[in-house]
């Protein structure tokens, strides 16, 4: 297991390097960052060139790239030119808020999907199944942005049960987490349903039933455990989707996490922040996938990593 872990961590290094290179290239393909910095309508070309020199954007692209790669291992992504501070700490200090929101969304997503998916599979073609499947398709079709605004209008403005935005109290977390969690739940519900449908037809489940075990024991102890393996695989991949959603939801709910910082950085081409932010997101996604792979050993004792 330790060798496997070490190998997986080492495998991350070239992937992260590749990601860093892609970010570096893509950001620069988009154009000149000075255009976002300078009050261009009152600056002459010479004045703009001066500013470009001051920020080192006049250097050859290869020199800028080598400089970027050399500093990468120390977490030095350069200085944000909006904040005039090192970019990495600016990103990291917002990470807890984003993880808090993502964590709550995962809880809500699983909390909704698990009972809905299982019940829909066990009562196939019933009204419950129809409702669960319809809700899951409907939920999937709702953009995060729209759902967030609707939840605000109903629960915060209309009913005045919950705060509209911000992060002052625990209640502030509920609406953005539900917005994100619903998206996750819709995918998971359909997967759990189809996976469970497949598993409950297996011989060992029939055997368990014929032994006279209760429905609850058959489902929870025998069927669900195996049924969850493919669901977890997809869940690992959904983490990237979830983080993408976080960016939008943080904007809507004024949640001060990485998402808000990233959106502003992208709009203003604050390269250092974008580079650091995407890099951190990449690490989180890869770590989540590793975690999911390790979780398989708990779900299925036959799986061993050597």
């Amino acid at each position, binding site marked *: 297991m330790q060798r496997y872990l070490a190998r997986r961590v080492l495998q991350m290094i070239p992937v992260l390097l590749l990601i860093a290179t892609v970010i570096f290239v893509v950001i620069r393909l988009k154009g000149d960052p000075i255009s976002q910095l300078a009050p261009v309508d009152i600056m002459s070309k010479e004045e703009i060139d001066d500013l470009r020199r001051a920020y080192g954007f006049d250097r050859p692209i290869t020199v800028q790239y080598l400089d970027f790669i050399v500093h990468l291992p120390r977490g030095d992504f350069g200085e944000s030119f909006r904040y*005039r501070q090192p970019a990495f700490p600016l990103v990291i200090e917002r990470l807890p808020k984003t993880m808090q929101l993502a964590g709550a969304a995962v809880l809500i997503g699983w909390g909704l999907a698990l009972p809905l998916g299982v019940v829909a599979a066990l009562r196939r073609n019933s009204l419950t199944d129809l409702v669960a499947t319809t809700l899951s398709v409907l939920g999937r079709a709702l953009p995060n942005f729209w759902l967030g605004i609707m939840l605000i209008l109903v629960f915060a403005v209309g009913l005045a049960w919950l705060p509209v935005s911000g992060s002052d109290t625990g209640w502030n977390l509920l609406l953005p987490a539900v917005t994100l969690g619903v998206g996750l739940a819709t995918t998971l519900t359909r997967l759990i349903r189809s996976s469970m449908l497949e598993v409950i037809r297996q011989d060992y489940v029939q055997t368990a039933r014929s032994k006279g075990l209760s429905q609850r024991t058959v489902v929870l102890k025998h069927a669900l455990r195996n049924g969850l393996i493919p669901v977890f695989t997809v869940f690992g991949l959904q983490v990237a989707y979830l983080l993408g959603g976080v960016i939008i939801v943080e904007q*809507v709910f004024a949640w001060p996490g990485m998402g808000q910082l990233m959106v502003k950085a992208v709009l203003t*081409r604050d390269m250092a922040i974008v580079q650091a932010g995407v890099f951190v997101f990449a690490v989180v996604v890869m770590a989540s996938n590793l975690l999911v792979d390790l979780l398989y050993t708990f779900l299925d004792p036959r799986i061993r990593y050597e």
Partner: protein
Amino acid sequence: MKLRNAARLLAVFLLTVVAATTFYAEGFAGAAPRTRATIAFQELVTSFDPPTDWAIVATWIHSNIGDCLVWRDRRTGRFVPWLAEKWERVNETNWKFFLRKGVKFHNGEPLNAQAVKFTIDRILADRRILVYNQWTFIKEVRALDDHTVQIETSATEPAMLSKVAGTGCQVLPPRYFQQVGPQEFARNPIGTGPYQFVEFRKDDRVVLKANPDYFQGKPPIDDIVIRAIPEPSTRVAELLRGGIDLTVALPTQDWQRIESNANLKLVRYQTTQTIMLGLRTAPPWVTSDRRIREAIDRAIDRSALVKLAGGGTITRTRVTPPTLAWHPGLYGKPAETMYSPDRARQLLREANYQGQPMTFQSTNVWPMQKEVTEAIAQMLEGVGIKINLQIMDISTFREQVYFPNRNRELYMDGLGNSFFDPWIAVLGYSCIRNQRTDYCRPDLDALIQAGAREMVQEKRKQFYYKIQEIIAEDRPFINLYHMMDSVGTTKRLQFDPAPDGFVWLGKARVQ
């Protein structure tokens, strides 16, 4: 069993993470005894060091913490004494400012001439400071005594007061600044302003408290919370719910909702922004023919655009009231806006226009800009001009069109003038700044230079009138309308927004 353990472990872990970072706040506490107003902007500052952040919201926040030598009255365009109780022009290039006595920074440090000298010298010593170029008109600052400072300009400077009230003008406390350094100052600012800095949570809020020793008297509101809410519909929802007392940049489609709410009021104000078209004026562009440019101008119904944008004033000049020398013959005259589709068609025929497509590039950053752009395209198509419309987000527009000067026949722009002086509004007409229009007239350059140096106001006005008339006739830019924007407030907040939307809360009250 293992499954159950794993699920339990995962759930406990997630619950712990969420709970540990969530239910800590003061949010369940009772009502605070102090008066408090919460306002929301699209964003907050990136730095509290005034000359390093030139975003408009940042200048509003800086102005509540710090003060400048003079203050622009945004209704009249006049300058009123602020930290300087009076000033005088010594000669062509020297000005004396007499500082108010007894003013202290929030840390007790006295405001004196050395502080003013330090503030300006520090900008002039660092080219990386964003507003550096706005201050290079100053040659030297001398502290004559504790409360008199003399500023020498490189040349005669009629816009002196406008410029010393410009971005980054807030006077800094030299002792504190040198003691903590620029980075720490940018996080924990000290000023002389109506409010003292208390707390900053990035992308979340700035908390300020009233300065009891403010030279204009303690502000009526004890605490100000300035929140960042980037999404306009969320800002509107917060206003409707009563979570905030004031917000800006409201979507046009929400104006009615706010106006019909008994607890809220919508205040619409004239910005300093003029919406205009920029045109290529040299071959090979089809707009190089003056008649075609005039046809474009005559094809556009400015009154319809103003209606579509939700308000505004039609204009054929960028120098708009209350800026000095705004041209009464070119501003706010519906009958003289040139609108005449028939004349436009005739001009196109005279110019032998063969239906060559014109690329019209625009963005969606100002209120209803996308709709206004589409309406203009339809008006132009209506007289027979073939339009290739490109609407893009502001970052793409700036990077791929505006900044590299890759604009084609037509582009839409919206330019403000926070200086309230015409020198900056006409700068873009000079030959050295013609990269987006190719427009160059040496006689106009001479007028621009004369206007920037003339100290006799009446003579100066005449230079700017002439410049505006030439531009309206030559049409390297076709000015369309003076834009409006809106502020939404609760009725409990007594705050009268400035005509340019500037949010200064020194006199605001809550009921």
